[in-house]
């Protein structure tokens, strides 16, 4: 009977999973990818999965990408669901990005600045022509690195010395954690930055872009983008002093934006801040645009655009939440749809009866 055919969920799931495994592997005559290959050669995808998965582990991110067939959102989801089961034994000390070992550092607001400009491994000035020889090319000779790494002060410190830049906010001591406390509004900047750091890159990009097109303009300049390695330190209670638990690659963006001043504050530059795991400039820049636009209310600016609406942005920026709720629409909804069918039939019957009565009255 037809009705029986739509049941049988148990067997359907098993068959689907077997098919999925088969599709994931592809042609078995081709060699399987290794995690090291993904980690080394698809590094930007690994970076994005770590950022949205909110877990810094290149090997696990590579595994997630392999398991997800390269679907970045699905891979980030796999990583999140693993991360959430991990015990917490310490909170990291604030990262000292001024002491980063930089491989790239550019500023758009000074021709030259202490520490200099350093392009590093960027695609910025490549011509986007498909390199048909790439698949068969022999390994490129190692790039030449000149000179010793030197300390590079952060742009905020340079502008701050002249009093033109708002000072850093006072250290709140501890910061919020939306993985432990649910998001509540109004959300403070620490929680906003955490949400943006894990947010979907496409969402950040689109909303950041909207601020440039007049929906909440912040007059942004890239004060500085820096990419490099920095040490993560914790203070174990039994030691009482910081120890390094490893180095991670970070991209940091300081967006310098205009502030017209208020009754209590003279005109000055304000900051938008972006930070991302790995080499992720698009992400860090978009995040810094949004960080600044979300400060509109606290700076006394009119909140008129989506990118300035904290509740709107934070409620919809998470790719795992968003993909879950959008895609859940493919789950069965036939019980609710049945109740809608009954309601709409009733409304149509009422409407037709009404039309009939009107027609009779007109006769």
């Amino acid at each position, binding site marked *: 009977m037809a*009705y029986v055919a739509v049941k049988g969920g148990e067997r359907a799931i098993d068959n689907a999973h077997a098919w999925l495994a088969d599709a994931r592997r592809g042609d078995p005559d081709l060699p399987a990818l290794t995690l090291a290959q993904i980690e080394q050669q698809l590094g930007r995808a690994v970076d994005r999965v770590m950022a949205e998965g909110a877990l810094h582990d290149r090997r696990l991110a590579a595994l997630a990408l392999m398991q997800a067939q390269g679907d970045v959102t699905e891979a980030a*989801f796999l990583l999140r*669901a693993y991360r959430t089961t991990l015990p917490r034994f310490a909170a990291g000390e604030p990262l000292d990005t001024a002491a980063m070992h930089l491989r790239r550092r550019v500023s758009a607001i000074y021709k030259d600045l202490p520490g200099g400009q350093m392009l590093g491994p960027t695609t910025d000035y490549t011509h986007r022509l498909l390199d048909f020889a790439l698949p068969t090319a022999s390994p490129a000779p190692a790039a030449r690195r000149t000179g010793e790494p030197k300390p590079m002060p952060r742009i905020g410190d340079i502008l701050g010395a002249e009093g033109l830049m708002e000072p850093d906010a006072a250290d709140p001591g501890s910061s919020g954690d939306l993985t432990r406390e649910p998001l509540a509004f109004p959300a403070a900047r620490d929680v906003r930055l955490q949400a943006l750091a894990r947010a979907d890159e496409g969402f950040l990009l689109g909303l950041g872009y909207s601020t440039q097109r007049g929906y909440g303009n912040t007059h942004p300049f890239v004060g500085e983008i820096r990419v490099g390695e920095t040490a993560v330190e914790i203070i174990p209670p039994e030691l009482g002093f910081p120890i390094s638990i490893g180095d991670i690659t970070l991209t940091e963006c300081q967006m310098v934006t205009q502030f017209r001043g208020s009754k209590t504050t003279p005109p000055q530059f304000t900051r938008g801040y972006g930070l991302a795991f790995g080499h992720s400039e698009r992400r860090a820049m978009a995040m810094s645009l949004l960080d600044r636009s979300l400060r509109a209310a606290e700076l006394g600016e009119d909140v008129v655009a989506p990118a300035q609406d904290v509740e709107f942005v934070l409620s919809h920026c998470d790719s795992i*939440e968003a993909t*879950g709720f959008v895609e859940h*629409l493919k789950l069965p909804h036939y*019980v609710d749809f049945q109740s809608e069918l009954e309601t709409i039939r*009733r409304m149509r019957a009422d409407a037709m009866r009404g039309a009939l009565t009107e027609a009779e009255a007109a006769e």
Partner: protein
Amino acid sequence: MSGYNFAYLDEQTKRMIRRAILKAVAIPGHQVPFGGREMPLPYGWGTGGIQVTASVIGAGDVLKVIDQGADDTTNAVSIRRFFARTADVRTTTRTGEASIIQTRHRIPETRLREDQIIVYQVPIPEPLAKLEPSRAEARRMHALAEYGAMHVRLYEDITRYGHVSISYDYPVLVNRRYLMAPSPIPAFDNPKMHMMPALQLFGAGREKRIYAVPPYTEVRSLDFEDHPFRATRAPHACALCGAADSYLDEVVTEDRGGRMFVCSDTDHCETRRSAREAAA
């Protein structure tokens, strides 16, 4: 399952969720924020319900999971397997045998008992969401019991259509205080919530809210004296068991408009059919 705690969540997380549940039970219908975790199933698939179930389930529990009233829908199968795998608990499709029933979109036709818990999966816990998208503002409205906007919405429906057009997730007032979203169950199921002997727990994973209706609590579907709440169902009898009072699924049987109506609650339908066969 090795490498994971009983029922997946670590014990600290379960304690946090149990505290939220206790608060929710103490304030019937009030949404309690909780530190919802990512689960290995996607948001929208029942992560809130799964977290609530994981926090209340013990080794001796017997779990039933339904989606659209059926035990055999793929998502129900998947969640049942999840708990069989992570908690090694006994599962059942029999409503009467279960100590915990996790559900999406239905309440079983069989009356639940005091020794049972029903866990609802909730997509949007905020009943005012369609009228007031800001959760901060909606929270204020709940604090002040400012529910006039919802009554106006129902009134507008009545003036336009002659009846309320909400057919599922029909808002209820719990214990005469909090407006509550019953989750997207058909309005047909709403009266079952009223004075239910079983504990009713609601979990919204993505929105990170838990709420509850304690046993024997008043749950009223919003209505007006001259337009009392009416639960509707397809006006047919079940083609398989003949039930004339159960909620029905409409199954399209061929492409020329043929359809049959069958019980959405598969356990209810099968129990009735086997009783009939036994009697025959």
